[in-house]
């Protein structure tokens, strides 16, 4: 596979204003140096050990598995990381790079608020100025995370343009970056955007799969039959998939947000229901109309509510190495409730899409199968949404 100029065959690349090229080149260089710099790697590893809480544990969920064809189901507990999701892995890596590039200010977009909270956390830890762009709609859906970011010292700017969700937050962050690129690093939270973001964010997230692969081997003495993860932009999925890509017998299954159902048009399942296009600086699958205008996505999960997807997923899809399926809001919420009640673990609604996928895949593969699921985040932030959904009075 060619990653030259950040391409995954025809996907990826850079579709950005010329003004950003210098900053992207600088970032690419800093990242490439860091990859081979033992001091950088030592620093990041130390942070993960003493701050993130890595390695994250593996939890077998036997009572949940009864509902999934009796397969052996293992959860990679990224929800137990500091700040409550996998987002911290990428954020700490990029914050270290920010420091190395001599920049004093970071900006970030956020949907569910998980990446925004992680970015605000890293900014506090490293003494960086931090501005978070968040769709106005999402600031309402995720008000608790807005408060968390503010407590961490970040400025949260609600974005009222367009659909007022993640896509518009990214637009606004890119406008800020074009204007303040000399002093500012855009700490993008997912494996999308212009090169080097898709490869760089993947490099910071692939630790999930590297740890999990060893842990599964140690626990079960063999590789899992399938690895499952939810997909919005796709960072937690690429993070857990990557170490397994050479293991051809391991199925990689990404679960997209099917919203009200693909047939309704109200969904965020970009690979399942979209077409090839360019959005936010990269070529991948996009939800778009016949004029190339981005179509608004819909999902109960703010973190998956994005009409694009990382280019490496588009590539893995096209070559058949990974499969992508859609999970509706209702299926995700049923899995959310099931894991909570059978295992005492309240998952993020994002991650509940992966759990719902596991229920189906477990039934397909039967009781001898081993399924590894990336439990990418915890559900504390979703209590309000879930309470409304299930009719629990607050």
């Amino acid at each position, binding site marked *: 596979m060619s990653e030259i100029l950040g391409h995954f065959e025809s996907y990826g690349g850079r579709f950005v204003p*010329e003004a950003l090229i210098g900053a992207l080149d600088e970032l690419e260089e800093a990242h490439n140096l860091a990859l081979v710099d033992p001091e950088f790697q030592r620093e990041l590893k130390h942070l993960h050990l003493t701050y993130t809480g890595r390695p994250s544990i593996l939890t077998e969920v036997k009572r949940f598995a009864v509902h999934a064809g009796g397969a052996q189901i293992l959860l990679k507990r990224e929800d137990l990381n500091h700040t409550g999701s996998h987002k911290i892995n990428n954020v700490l890596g990029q914050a270290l790079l920010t420091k190395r590039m001599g920049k004093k200010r970071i900006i970030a977009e956020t949907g569910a608020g998980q990446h925004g909270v992680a970015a605000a956390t890293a900014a506090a830890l490293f003494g960086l100025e931090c501005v978070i762009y968040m769709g106005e709609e999402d600031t309402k859906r995720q008000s608790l995370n807005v408060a968390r970011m503010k407590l961490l010292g970040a400025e949260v700017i609600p974005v009222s343009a367009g659909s007022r969700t993640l896509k518009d937050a990214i637009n606004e962050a890119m406008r800020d970056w074009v204007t303040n690129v000399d002093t500012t690093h855009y700490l993008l939270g997912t494996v999308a955007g212009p090169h080097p973001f898709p490869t760089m964010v993947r490099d910071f997230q692939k630790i999930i799969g590297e740890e999990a692969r060893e842990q599964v081997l140690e626990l079960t003495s063999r590789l899992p039959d399938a690895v499952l993860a939810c997909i919005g932009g796709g960072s937690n999925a690429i993070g857990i998939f990557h170490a397994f890509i050479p293991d051809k017998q391991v199925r990689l299954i990404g679960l997209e947000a099917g919203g009200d159902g693909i047939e309704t048009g109200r969904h965020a399942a970009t690979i399942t229901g979209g077409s090839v296009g360019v959005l936010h600086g990269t070529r991948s699958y996009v939800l*778009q109309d016949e004029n190339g205008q981005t179509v608004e996505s819909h999902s109960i999960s703010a973190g998956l509510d994005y009409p694009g997807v990382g280019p490496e997923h588009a590539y893995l899809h096209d070559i058949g190495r990974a499969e992508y399926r859609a999970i509706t809001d209702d299926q995700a919420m049923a899995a959310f409730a099931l894991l909570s009640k059978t295992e005492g673990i309240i998952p993020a609604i994002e991650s509940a899409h992966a759990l719902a996928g596991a229920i189906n895949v477990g039934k397909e593969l039967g009781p001898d199968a081993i399924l590894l699921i990336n439990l990418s985040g915890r559900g504390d932030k979703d209590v309000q949404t879930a309470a409304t959904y299930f009719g629990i009075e607050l």
Partner: protein
Amino acid sequence: MATSLEALFIKTRSENRAALIAYIPAGFPSQQGCKNAISALARAGVDAVEIGFPYSDPVMDGPTIQAAANISLQGGTGAAEVFSTLNFANQAGLPAVVMTYWNPIERYGVDRFAQEIARNGGSGVVTPDLTIEESDGWKLATQAAGINSIYVVAPSTTDDRLARVTQRCSGFVYAASLMGVTGTRTTISSGAQSLVDRIRKTTSLPIAVGLGVSTREQVRDVAGFADGVIVGSAFIKILLQARDEEAGLESLSALAQDLVAGVRQGR
């Protein structure tokens, strides 16, 4: 054969002045309103128009052009309306180019898009988010259609890269006057002139400066060192704020006449 845009710059160079280029999104303030605005701009003596293809995610644009693009999109503007507006400008005798983010071109079909531009009398296309690394197919398509491909460079573009980008340009080089998004500014960044100077070392193509240019004084200053001055948000603001279309067109004409005079005072 030279495009009408190329012919324009030969003419303005022989007159020792810069060209004034006006930007307006197709379908703004309405399909017909846009055409009326183009007629008014032509009558006022504007040299060329840049017709915007409104896009849902315009990351290079500030609030004014975002607002205009939204109005245009709500009015149902798509490729057909953009080409029809281009055709209208051509009929009005104005050299015209389309400015569009890349995805609408890719969605329409790269070769087909270039051919449609040519068929409707357009001189070329400005692509603010197409990097030269991604432009091989577009280069062939524009060459086959006989239209100009215009790239935008920025103050942060290195000399080495400027040389490579301007090599891909034809018609003119679009110099962004500052680091930032479109919109009116109170002053023109001093970076604009030094960028133009750096571009000149790489190409003999005309250079037009855009971003943040809105007043007669600014136009006059930029016309002193550039071959073209591009004004967008200032015109759009007038149309957004007008109490009705007639009043809007009147104010638009007044500003255009003012800027047309400004462009002739630069040297």
